[in-house]
């Protein structure tokens, strides 16, 4: 009796395990980074694909930072995620900054295809660049407008950013080197979602911000000007595995429907709805697509 139970259980386990494994042919997996904008873009793509193709979409949104998604894309755990040209250049290709947006796009497309077998589809339109933001108090006290001015008073300020900012070519090290910034003490590293809380509570004075972030408005932060042009442009676009695209060529046409449809202003608006108004991502994505006549 006991033996029969054990055998049945084992068969059950194996069936369930295999059931979970299969389903990779008619399914496409969409990942995203762990901040609202990227999640919204991922959700928009997911709904669009579900509407316009026969494919099933598995969502792995909010899955860690840039590097996690890139690794997952490279080894096939996900098929698509929204990436930024600047990030592609610096963080993944480890090349120098290219300021011309078209040139940047051309280079990443070529190199990603060549080196990784990953294809860049049509850009959404938005340029979510890294910027530096200071708290309102700092701005009131020092009146800084540019990064160079910030460098001048940097030894009075504490810098904080998410972990990956310290790991990238277009991140902390390059920034302080170019501008000769010397912040007070050790920079504070934290989870990306805690940054704005930290600056709001005064735990840090300066942080890297994404230009289209909602909390910039909420915490009344001052965005400074990158006068020496350290940060490259970060035009967002879907990047997809070459073999996924070859298996399902209809994805190219569908995803290119979004090309140029989401500019900075639009993205900020969508981000605001999710971050500040706390609307669910699915709803915001759906409303956007309907308004664009894509759903």
């Amino acid at each position, binding site marked *: 009796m006991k033996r029969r139970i054990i055998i049945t259980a084992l068969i059950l*386990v194996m069936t369930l395990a295999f059931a979970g494994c299969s389903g990779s042919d008619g399914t496409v997996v969409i990942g995203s980074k762990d901040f609202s904008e990227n999640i919204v873009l991922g959700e928009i793509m997911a709904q669009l694909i579900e509407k316009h193709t026969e494919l099933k979409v598995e*969502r792995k949104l*909010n899955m860690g930072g840039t590097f996690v998604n890139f690794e997952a894309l490279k080894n096939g755990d996900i098929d698509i995620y929204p990436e930024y040209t600047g990030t592609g250049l610096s963080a993944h290709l480890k090349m120098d900054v290219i300021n011309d947006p078209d040139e940047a796009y051309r280079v990443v497309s070529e190199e990603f295809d060549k080196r990784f077998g990953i294809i860049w589809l049509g850009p959404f339109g938005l340029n979510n660049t890294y910027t530096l933001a200071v708290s309102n108090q700092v701005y009131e006290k020092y009146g800084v407008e540019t990064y160079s001015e910030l460098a001048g008073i940097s030894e009075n300020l504490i810098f904080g950013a998410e972990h990956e900012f310290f790991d990238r070519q277009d991140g902390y090290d390059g920034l302080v080197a170019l501008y000769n910034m010397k912040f007070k003490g050790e920079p504070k590293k934290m989870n990306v979602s805690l940054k704005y809380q930290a600056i709001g509570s005064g735990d840090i004075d300066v942080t890297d911000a994404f230009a289209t972030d909602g909390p910039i408005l909420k915490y009344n932060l001052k965005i400074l000007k990158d006068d020496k042009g350290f940060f490259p442009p970060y035009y967002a676009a879907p990047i997809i595995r070459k073999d996924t695209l070859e298996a399902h060529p209809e994805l190219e046409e569908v995803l290119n429907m979004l090309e140029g449809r989401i500019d900075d202003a639009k993205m900020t608006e969508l981000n605001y709805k999710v*971050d500040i108004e*706390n609307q669910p991502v699915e709803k915001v994505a759906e409303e956007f697509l309907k308004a664009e006549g894509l759903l």
Partner: protein
Amino acid sequence: MNLAALTIEHMYIVFIAILISVAVGIALGVIAYWVRIADKFILWTVEILQTIPSLALLAMLMILFGLGNVTMIVGLVLYALMPITRNTHTGLSDVSPFIKDAAKGMGMTRLQRLIKVELPLAFPLIFSGIKIALVNSLSIAVMGVLIGAGGLGYPIYRGIQTLNMKLILSGAIPVVLMALVFDFFMSKIERRLLRRA
């Protein structure tokens, strides 16, 4: 995301992990019981596995197995081993020597004695270990979101990122409820088993 789907995914991950760890855990407990030299080693190993901080273990497993549900299941199995293995071993060891002798006297082989006498007698304690493993796993599985696995960790983590209590609770309440419900019913069964034994 659909809360019902997430809850089902969460349970699915935990159940598969528990099924595997029951099979492996009982097997290890039996081996520890039969093979005297192995017993300290096996019991120590499973205890060490449990002592390792869960985040640390999951992160290390992610390095080995990548992101996703499989890694989570492996992690849960490793954590569930201690209560099951130790209780199996204790349960078997606690079987009265008189009964063991009687079985030997009836001409049973070691395997027969195990399956027909010792395991059934040890079952209440083994079941208790399974209960502990299951309830703990439901809680630990929440961390799956950090290594790309599914489940109720997703709304919880998203809620943390956006400081949205509603989201956090929407994931947390089902987890806690499931843990309480399973604990309640399995404790009832456990009591009945102990009474019978």
